[in-house]
């Protein structure tokens, strides 16, 4: 399963990057979403996969022992998921607003401030 998921992560990255390299703003956002999912999966994999053992201390015990899923990447991903929602919503509104002002969906038409003449 690790290999399968590693490949999936690769596919997510590839898809995300392909979309980020496009000129359309909407595609850029979707690319960021895909890439975000890829990153979450990557962090999850780095913690190691443990089937069906959530990091929750059993009722009668005071410690977590034996085999359990790594809680550290989980905590990281949890915050990452929530933050990425904030990011996505902000970005999407920004794009909408930019589209209204610039009247184009083409990123290339928006690079005036960064252009060296």
């Amino acid at each position: 399963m690790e290999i399968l998921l590693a490949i999936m992560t690769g596919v997510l990255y590839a898809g995300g990057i392909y979309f980020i390299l496009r000129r359309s703003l909407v595609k850029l956002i979707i690319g960021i979403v895909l890439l975000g999912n890829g990153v979450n999966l990557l962090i999850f994999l780095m913690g190691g996969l443990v089937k069906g053992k959530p990091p929750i201390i059993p009722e009668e015990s005071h410690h977590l022992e034996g085999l359990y899923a790594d809680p550290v990447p989980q905590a990281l991903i949890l915050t990452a998921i929530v933050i990425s929602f904030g990011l996505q919503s902000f970005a999407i509104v920004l794009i909408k607003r930019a589209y209204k002002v610039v009247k184009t969906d083409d990123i290339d038409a928006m690079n005036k401030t960064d252009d060296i003449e």
Partner: protein
Amino acid sequence: MKSIILTTVSKTLLPLLLLFSVFVLLRGHYLPGGGFIAGLIASIAFILHSFANGLKKTRHLLRIHPGFLIPVGLALAIGSAIAPMIFQDLPVMTGLWYHNEIPVIGKIGSALFFDSGVYLVVIGVSLTIIFTISEKA
């Protein structure tokens, strides 16, 4: 998107989901759950209600703008973080706990208040975003 079924269901679903979210919040320290998840459940409950009954009704139901939940939540979280500094001269974010156990909730401590702060902020943020967008989009 108004349908009678959805409208009817949402009327009972809203209180149920809200109750569930509080439940998830409280048990978060012991079982899966916590402020983030509970906050998201609550905001989805409101969003569902707004889809069924229209944004106006949901806003009327909420009475206050959801944005006000954000500072309240932040204040709660920051307050629980600096409480140990003020009351017991301990470093910031030291956990303070009430000794006796309370049924259902378990032990009460500053962490619970912190998580409630998170809960409120998440509701405030997601509702502000979704409501503003559906109003203006």
